């Protein structure tokens, strides 16, 4: 059980995984559908996901002490669990380093030529990985897990990976602070720490050289340091092959040549010793090339897992995952409610939906019983609800656990954030009773609408980050969102519509440069998510753009729709970026005239 105070203050609080201790990570982590099975394979891997989607939690969960807790049986201490894990079928030593802002992408590196910057970057990253390894060995293993003799051997061997003359100062510093015979791990950690400080000091001085200053310290690469280092660490586990899994977290923050460096490591196949697991935001990881210009290829060089893609899978894995997360958090907060009980939908609209289901079931009979009745009801009941709401001039209330799951579009943080705000709202309104029973649909509705509206208003914030020559692109995106929002709404609320719950589109024909720029911008700021599907012609995958469901409350759309997508001609996409009225009118007209040239519907592949 984690430190529960902050969850009782607000069960939906979003904490940085770095801040959590190992036990808390273990308790909060939801293993189901997390990608853990993919990532713990003995392969290099990329873990893709936007910020807040759970990448760091996943990597922290794979650290040794979490695995130890996982393998602990009833009544045992975690130390026993650790032995069971290490002696099991697939042991590994998970070491995470964060590439947070300013950790590796130092401004001083820009003052050097690319080759020097790359050499120093690799050394800096090697030192960070090595010191993180020593820290994990020291803090996440029981003191007596390794013999003192084996630890001392490791310390001596590791120090010999460098030329002793070039690390003389660091050796002295390590020996001043720790005794190698009694604290070998700490001694070795200190050695790396001192080397890292030397490197930072060089970067500092590099800015202010009297004459040309050359770096005279040690450097390290993959084959002359990282690989032998891993081999030495493995010797701590005699008779076992325990590979080191190096988790490079937030790798999108690295400079391109640093990303090439990571890719170069991943191009090596020493998987029994080193597996590199790189976590990043897909669109911000800017190269798949290695340092020598080769392309890193899937599945040849690596495997990958996209956390976001969970949401698009046809089973309910993302919903299950969020349900498990919320269940845990409510439990930590001492709230005895299920997620569905705590976040209930609007009862009035639920009644209306139930009625619409009955209406569509009867409709199925009238129209000659096409397909299965359940499928028909599933397909038309929600659109009928939206049509009824339009007729009676009511807004859809998106309250309810399942609706909020859909609105979060595959990112756990986008579920937790509005729920956090709802809880805060109750606190502010001093509605203390509801804090333990559930958040009223009215509070949910208001927060969810505001949260959606904020996302649209963010377009103006984005403008501030763009250069004036790209303002047009942003304006086109704004119009495109409106065009699609209105078109989807018209489609949803049209009783004649055959496939009313459309939420995504594909483009036929060559995209104009302007459209490319707009779609790129939309992907970057997550207004659209990009997926692929197999083309009808076969032999390839086509791009498929899905609107972020966080936009639903503003555009009055149904976030639960997955079936089908619009196929839009590229020339009409250009129109949609310029003139919402013309685009929507043209579309509706073509619908009436049954002219499928503007867009046609495609079934989900």
């Amino acid at each position, binding site marked *: 059980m984690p430190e529960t105070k902050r969850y009782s203050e607000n069960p939906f609080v979003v904490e*940085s995984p770095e801040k959590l201790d190992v036990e808390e990570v273990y308790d909060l982590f939801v293993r189901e559908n997390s990608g853990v099975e993919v990532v713990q394979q003995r392969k290099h891997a990329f873990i893709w996901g936007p910020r807040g989607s759970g990448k760091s939690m996943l990597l922290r969960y794979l650290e040794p002490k979490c695995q130890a807790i996982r393998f602990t049986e009833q009544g045992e201490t975690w130390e026993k669990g650790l032995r069971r894990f290490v002696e099991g079928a697939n042991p590994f030593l998970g070491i995470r380093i964060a590439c*947070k802002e*300013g950790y590796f992408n130092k401004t*001083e590196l820009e003052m050097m030529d690319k080759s020097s910057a790359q050499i120093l970057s690799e050394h800096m990253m090697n030192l960070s990985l090595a010191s993180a390894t020593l820290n994990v060995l020291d803090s996440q293993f029981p003191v007596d897990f390794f013999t003192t003799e084996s630890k001392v051997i490791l310390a001596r061997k590791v120090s010999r990976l460098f030329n002793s003359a070039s690390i003389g100062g660091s050796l002295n510093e390590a020996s001043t602070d720790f005794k190698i015979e009694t604290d070998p791990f700490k001694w070795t950690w200190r050695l790396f720490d001192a080397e890292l400080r030397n490197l930072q000091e060089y970067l500092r001085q590099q800015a202010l050289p009297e004459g040309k200053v050359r770096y005279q310290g040690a450097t390290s690469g993959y084959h002359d340091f990282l690989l032998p280092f891993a081999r030495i660490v493995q010797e701590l586990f005699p008779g076992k092959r325990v590979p080191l899994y190096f988790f490079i977290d937030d790798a999108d923050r690295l400079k391109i040549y640093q990303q090439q460096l990571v890719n170069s490591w991943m191009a090596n196949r020493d998987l029994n010793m080193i597996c590199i697991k790189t976590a990043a935001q897909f669109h911000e990881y800017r190269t798949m090339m290695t340092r020598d210009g080769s392309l890193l290829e899937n599945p040849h060089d690596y495997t990958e897992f996209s956390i976001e893609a969970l949401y698009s899978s046809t089973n309910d894995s993302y919903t299950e995952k969020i349900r498990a997360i919320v269940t845990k958090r409510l439990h930590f907060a001492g709230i005895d409610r299920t997620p569905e009980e705590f976040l209930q939908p609007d009862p009035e609209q639920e009644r209306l939906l139930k009625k619409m289901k009955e209406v569509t079931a009867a409709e199925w009979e009238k129209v000659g019983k096409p397909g299965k009745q359940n499928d028909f009801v599933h397909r038309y009941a929600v659109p009928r609800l939206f049509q009824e709401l339009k007729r009676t001039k009511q807004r859809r209330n998106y309250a309810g656990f399942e609706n909020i799951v859909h609105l979060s579009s595959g990112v756990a943080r986008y579920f937790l954030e509005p729920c*956090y705000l709802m809880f805060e709202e109750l606190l502010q309104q001093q509605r203390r009773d509801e804090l333990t029973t559930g958040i009223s649909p009215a509070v949910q509705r208001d927060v969810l609408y505001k949260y959606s509206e904020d996302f649209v208003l963010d377009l103006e914030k984005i403008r501030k980050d*763009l250069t004036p020559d790209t303002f047009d692109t942003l304006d086109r995106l704004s119009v495109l969102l409106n065009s699609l929002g209105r078109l989807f709404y018209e489609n949803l609320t049209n009783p004649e519509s055959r496939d009313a719950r459309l939420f995504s589109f594909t483009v036929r024909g060559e995209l104009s440069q302007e459209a490319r720029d707009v779609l790129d911008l939309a992907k970057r700021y997550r207004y659209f998510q990009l997926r692929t599907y197999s083309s009808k012609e076969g032999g390839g995958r086509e791009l498929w753009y899905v609107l972020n469901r966080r936009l639903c409350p503003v555009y009055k759309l149904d976030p639960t729709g997955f079936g089908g997508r619009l196929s839009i001609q590229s020339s009409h996409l250009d129109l949609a970026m310029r003139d919402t009225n013309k685009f929507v009118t043209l579309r509706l007209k073509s619908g009436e005239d049954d002219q499928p040239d503007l867009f046609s519907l495609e079934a989900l592949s």
Partner: protein
Amino acid sequence: MNICGSVENFMVNGGLLPIDKSDKDDLFITCASFEQRSTGLADCMTGNYRVKQSAIYVNSEFRNLKSTQDNINIIESKLQKVSDNYLGLRLGSWGNAVEQFQVLRKLVAPNNVCSGTTRVTVDITTFTRESLISCLALLRWAYPKGTVRLAYISPKEYNPAGKAMIRKLELESSKTRDKANDLDQHLSASEMQRHLWLSRGFRCIRNAIGFPGLQRQNLPALLILLPGYEIERALTIVNAIEPVQVMLGRPTDATRDEFYERSLDAKTQMVRLFKSRQPVREFDFSCKSIETTSQAILDVATVFYDTHNIYMTSLSTKPTLVAMFLTAIKLNRIQVTCSVPRDYNIDDYSTGMHEVSFFNLPQD
């Protein structure tokens, strides 16, 4: 920090004098920008100020603005009169940290380290924050035995046109609403921000050259932030760094009451916005006194120095940036972080000149 009162009084009392009143300064450096106050110290060269060499630093992005050119003309004509050797303009770019640093290096330390007792006066008023940090690092390195005097002139007003617009909107709104029912209605925060801004948007976050800090993988990140008026810029920094805790400065003074109230208001908004992401703890700092703020930051940083990877950034006045610099040279594992905005409010940044103050940069 020696605050000499209003610019007018300072001029009446003789204006700017050399560091050693009996001898010329060796070097005078200033930055010309679109702000009126960038001419302040040149305006104060009314009496006996003399210098051997002088130069003006200009951001190339602002170089072609009429207001910048007007200010350059004023400063140039004064420097030509008081200097034995006026070196002219040096163009750098706030968009390019390396270029900016190299230009400043040639300007501040053309002969690398100078072992003599050189006397340098620098008007820090309108340097960008990043260029000022570079400038201070170079000055301290190049003149270890010299005297480096920093001068700063506060403005009379920030966002004068924006404030006038808000007054107008409030007046219009008060005319149209029912006063009996709606007395407390004010303009929305976003409406206020639309008119009252100094910089906006985001290009990048980077460490100030020479202050990369030391980041240990086993330690969490902590941000020491001295807030100014720029709420969005502060939020962007917090989002990028993702610290486990923010130590947020609480201003205790300002050169004018109005500035103080605005900065307190901005700080309050920041606390509200930051709190949903990570804990925020506050500490007092002075917007005017370098010594007070330097000690305040030092006290905070010392507590976390061995347990956190510390980032430090100031969005407050230039004196607070000097204070931050002084802390960073004492605790060199701290990273000094700069955020580069998309735009500065060139048309409505500040107006006038209020107080002038001086500070001697301590050397080893």
